[in-house]
């Protein structure tokens, strides 16, 4: 019989396969290449501002992998399901990259005055008279000063990381303790994780909203949208899930993931990706619909900055990469059950996140606002994020190697080792 009717067995060695070391080396060399390219670009163009802008873009993408991983980890604790067991260790490793993301945040906070107009301008009225900012910006900066100030930016930034750090610490620590705990039953651990993860998801949404308002939305201090936080939350899930699925697909070529990887869970993950594709377009379109219906000059400007002056095709391609391609591809049942094709869709989705983050960040700055153009420093939007994400990946592969890739002592484990048709 070509189908195996025996139960799979876990291999004795649950640590990450040696291939991960090879991937880490590859990631490190990509990071080095792009870091050098970025340095050369800086020497030629002498525009450090652009390095910071690219850095912010890289930070937001690394943050989405790290915190998106944390959020999905909490989701799988609350909902249960065998897909959660399959993804658990890769997601935990993603959440443990938080210290690196904190280091990446520091340059943004240190050079806030070069990046954020509200930090650069000390006296809005004087800046308005000098013609540096317009009346609307002067009003917004003065009005929002109690929130948008460098001291507050630092304090909130550090607080965000401490709050997330607590969740990362306990979820990772308990998970390792559970592996070898024979004294407490499943009920004890399940409740423990649920009690932390449920409130954790609420805290995550609130804190992440603060993060993206501080770091990205405040680039344009005159504009605001209540949808913004949710857009980032969903896009983090989108990015982190695509990356996590890509990782387990790659790891499934080797033990130990090979023995717990089944088509059933792969299909489930494909459906979950599809759900995130829909949820993401739902958020993005809702914001657009609300602002389009409102038709107010102070809100519509944000979209005008991003669709006029050559940015229109970029926005159209954003829609294509983010929704059209993954949506129509993931409709197919066969594709979701095919490793290679599902991995391709994950790559499209990850590429879409880069594209979208660029589209969100770049038009905030006067050089690019309603003016899509090419210049040497603009290349920093490719070099810096590519170097940062490659470095993040290298660190991720390091954290992945620090513990076994299969969580033990979980009631789902015997089930996921069963062949897929043994129901009796």
């Amino acid at each position, binding site marked *: 019989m070509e189908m195996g*009717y025996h139960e799979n067995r876990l291999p004795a060695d649950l640590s990450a396969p040696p291939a991960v070391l090879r991937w880490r080396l590859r990631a490190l060399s990509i990071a080095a290449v792009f870091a050098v390219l970025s340095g050369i670009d800086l020497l030629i163009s002498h525009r450090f501002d652009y390095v910071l802008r690219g850095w912010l873009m890289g930070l937001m993408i690394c943050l989405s992998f790290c915190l998106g991983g944390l959020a999905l980890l909490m989701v799988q604790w609350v909902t249960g399901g065998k897909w959660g067991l399959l993804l658990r260790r890769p997601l935990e490793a993603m959440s443990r990259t938080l210290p690196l993301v904190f280091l990446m945040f520091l340059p943004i906070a240190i050079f806030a005055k070069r990046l954020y107009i509200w930090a650069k301008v000390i006296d809005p009225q004087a800046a308005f008279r000098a013609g540096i900012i317009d009346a609307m910006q002067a009003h917004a900066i003065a009005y929002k000063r109690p929130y948008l100030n460098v001291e507050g930016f630092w304090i909130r930034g550090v607080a965000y990381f401490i709050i997330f750090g607590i969740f990362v610490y306990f979820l990772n620590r308990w998970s390792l303790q559970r592996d070898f705990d024979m004294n407490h039953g499943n009920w004890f651990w399940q409740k423990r994780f649920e009690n932390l993860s449920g409130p954790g998801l609420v805290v995550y949404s609130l804190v992440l909203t603060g993060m993206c308002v501080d770091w990205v939305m405040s680039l344009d201090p005159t504009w605001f949208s209540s949808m913004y936080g949710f857009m980032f939350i969903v896009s983090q899930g989108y990015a982190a899930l695509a990356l996590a699925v890509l990782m387990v697909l790659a790891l499934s070529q080797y033990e130990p993931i090979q023995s717990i990887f089944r088509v059933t869970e792969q299909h489930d993950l494909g459906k979950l990706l599809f759900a995130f594709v829909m949820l993401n377009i739902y958020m993005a379109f809702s914001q657009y619909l609300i602002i389009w219906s409102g*038709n107010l000059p102070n809100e519509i400007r944000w979209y005008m900055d991003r669709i006029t002056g050559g940015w229109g095709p970029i926005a159209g391609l954003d829609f294509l990469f983010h929704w059209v391609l993954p949506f129509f591809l993931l409709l197919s049942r066969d594709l979701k059950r095919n490793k290679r094709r599902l991995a391709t869709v994950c790559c499209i989705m990850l590429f879409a996140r880069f594209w979208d983050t660029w589209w969100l960040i770049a038009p905030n700055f006067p050089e690019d606002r309603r003016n899509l153009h090419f210049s040497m420093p603009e290349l920093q939007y490719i070099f810096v994020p590519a170097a940062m994400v490659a470095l993040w990946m290298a660190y991720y592969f390091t954290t992945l190697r620090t513990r076994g890739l299969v969580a033990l002592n979980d009631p789902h484990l015997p089930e996921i080792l069963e062949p897929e048709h043994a*129901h009796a």
Partner: protein
Amino acid sequence: MPVREGIYGLLAEFDTPTELVVAAKASYNAGYRRMDCYTPYPVEEAAEAMGFDEPKEKAVSRVCLLGGILGGLAMFTLESWISIWAYPLNIAGRGKFSWVAFIVPAYEWTILWAGLCAGFGMLALNRLPAPYHPLFNAPNFRNGATSDKFFLCLEADDPRFSVTDTRSLLESLHPVSVVEVEH
């Protein structure tokens, strides 16, 4: 329609889903296509064993996709027709063709018609509801199919079907019993 007479098929009874899946797979590999599995609860692998994954078997997916596309197009066209030709209204100076606002109802109709087509398409393609089915003539099927037994029926209108050869194939797959079912 004239009353159909004669043999409907050979019904093999199994105790476990695994045996059923093995048997279905073996019958499929032996060239049988007109067959069906009957289980008390969904056994997806049985569908796969019978070649459900082959493109021609995916009629429900296609009906669902077609329903979704037609539903979405219908609503979007309706909205465009109303706003541009039938009853144009100037709402806060926006263009007559305000596609942004049309998306929401068009999306709802896509979901609605995809869902309806999937549900009713599945019923129609399965020829349901069926007030009469020959298999209920078999007493062991009546008693076991909804509780704890797993059945494979190889149908007589399969070109490979022969009362003797098919029976010996089924008996080689360790069933509890093989019975002949009349129309």
